[in-house]
């Protein structure tokens, strides 16, 4: 039988999927044990117990200074920034994306500038951003918005242009005005597609959040990683990274679910 046609069944699939995770864990534990055998104070690859300790310390015990559970506090602070920024980005992308994609005049005017601007490395703009927006959450949100909204606008505009021309004609023959077409034909069809685009931008959004928190902040997941990085406290960094990965994964999952539940028509329409 060709390898190509060899399909593992459910049980096998699960076993196979677990394999690389187990291998990674084992490799880490070996590496860690080796380094710790050489130097019991080694910080680079802490033992699982050390990491467990750190997690317990950060997540389960209140910080004596502030009385906060640091890890939850960091998560809350980062997530609220991230979600606010993504909400703003999404809204901007929806409005401008539809305008640019639907109206040839808007497309001609703003299409090129958005295309070029989306190539600007946003991190390089940080100092200017901080001056204009101040150092509070506004600047961090602005960074994430700038870093993701331009791409999203481009994406939405392209997808509006991808709508079958027939639909727009049909709407016109039903007497729809441009505004009505935008509102009732284009907008609702863009929402589920936007979810796909937002999922792609989650990675960059986290990156910008972490970068912004690294510069000026007093809480947040990125802040904590940066703070303890100078001491090479990998026992904190590694659990935080895993936690961020998990959060990113859950957000992705939630968006996929939202797409499936809120837009039941979309799966069928996409397949067609």
């Amino acid at each position, binding site marked *: 039988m060709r390898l190509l046609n060899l399909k593992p069944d459910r049980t096998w699939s699960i076993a196979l999927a677990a394999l690389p995770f187990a291998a990674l864990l084992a490799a880490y534990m070996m590496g860690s044990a080796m380094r710790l055998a050489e130097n019991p104070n080694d910080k680079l690859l802490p033992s699982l117990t050390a990491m467990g300790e750190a997690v317990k310390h950060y997540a389960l015990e209140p910080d004596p200074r502030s009385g906060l559970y640091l890890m939850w506090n960091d998560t809350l602070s980062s997530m609220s920034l991230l979600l606010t920024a993504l909400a703003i980005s999404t809204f901007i992308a929806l409005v401008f994306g539809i305008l640019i994609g639907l109206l040839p005049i808007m497309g001609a005017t703003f299409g090129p500038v958005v295309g070029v601007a989306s190539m600007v490395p946003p991190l390089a703009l940080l100092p200017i951003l901080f001056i204009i927006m101040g150092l509070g959450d506004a600047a961090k949100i602005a960074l994430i918005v700038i870093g993701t909204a331009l791409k999203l606008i481009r994406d939405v505009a392209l997808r509006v242009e991808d709508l*079958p021309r*027939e*639909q727009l*004609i*049909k*709407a*016109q*023959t*039903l*007497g*729809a*005005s441009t*505004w*009505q077409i935008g*509102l*009732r*034909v284009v907008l*609702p*069809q863009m929402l589920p597609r936007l979810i796909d685009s937002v999922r792609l931008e989650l990675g960059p959004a986290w990156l910008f959040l972490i970068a912004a928190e690294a510069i000026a902040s007093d809480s947040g997941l990125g802040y904590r990683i940066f703070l303890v990085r100078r001491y090479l406290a990998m026992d904190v960094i590694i659990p935080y990274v895993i936690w961020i990965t998990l959060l990113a994964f859950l957000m992705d999952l939630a968006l996929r679910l939202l797409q499936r539940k809120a*837009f*039941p*028509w*979309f*799966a*069928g*329409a996409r*397949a*067609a």
Partner: protein
Amino acid sequence: MTAIVFDNVWKEYGDHVVLERIDLTIAPRSFVALVGPSGCGKTTFLRMLLGEEKPTRGKILVGGNPLKTEPDADRGVVFQRYSVFPHLTVLANVMIGREFERACLLGKLFGEARRAAEAEARHLLEAVGLKGHEDKYPASLSGGMQQRLALAQAINRKPRILLLDEPFGALDPGIRADIHVLIRRIWNENSLTIVMVTHDLSEAFRLGTRVIAFERPRNRPEELERYGATLGEVSAKAIVAASGASITQDFDVWPRKVAEPLPSADTQLDLKLASANGAKPPG
């Protein structure tokens, strides 16, 4: 009413002449079937009628007035695909025309107005045989049901002209026969002029009161680009009986023999070659 007049219409894309010298008067209430080989400009013709494309030369008049330069509610349309809105339920797809008409700002009706529009839409859906499917999304309908829906949607705004671009091209023959009955009924019951593009000659003759064939007179490939298709025209008055058998015999030499007399005795075909140049004489 709404006679449509094509007055020496040409359509070119850059150097590529798609249609040339189209002189044509479509009487009100006619059901014109448009046939011709792929790429000869049938869709282009329809798009000009829609107002989506402008003729390069000549003009199109509807009821004596120049054609509006953009699609509007006077002219309904059904395409082969993508005619219905995938994000709306069957019911909403039919209602949306009324909503566009009555709710300028939100494009959505509420309360009493909504109930009225809904009742009307349900009635129409029943008429096209979609009762019971009101709450489904188009993707879960079969191809035939989708086209029924598209028809209901277009009819709901009561256009004076209905344009169909290979509306049944993607359907099973069995389903197609059913929907033929429906479109005839729609045409009978509404005060409509229908222009339909089709690839299927038997369909053209079964449905149309008039069959118009587009063809390109010059067949050498290097000339195809430069000279567009001209118009060959056939009016078939007794339709349903006329098509069927005899047309099937002609199938494999289609489309050049469209202009020949239909062999069946009980049909009264009115044959004319409208194209001045290059079209072959009948027989």
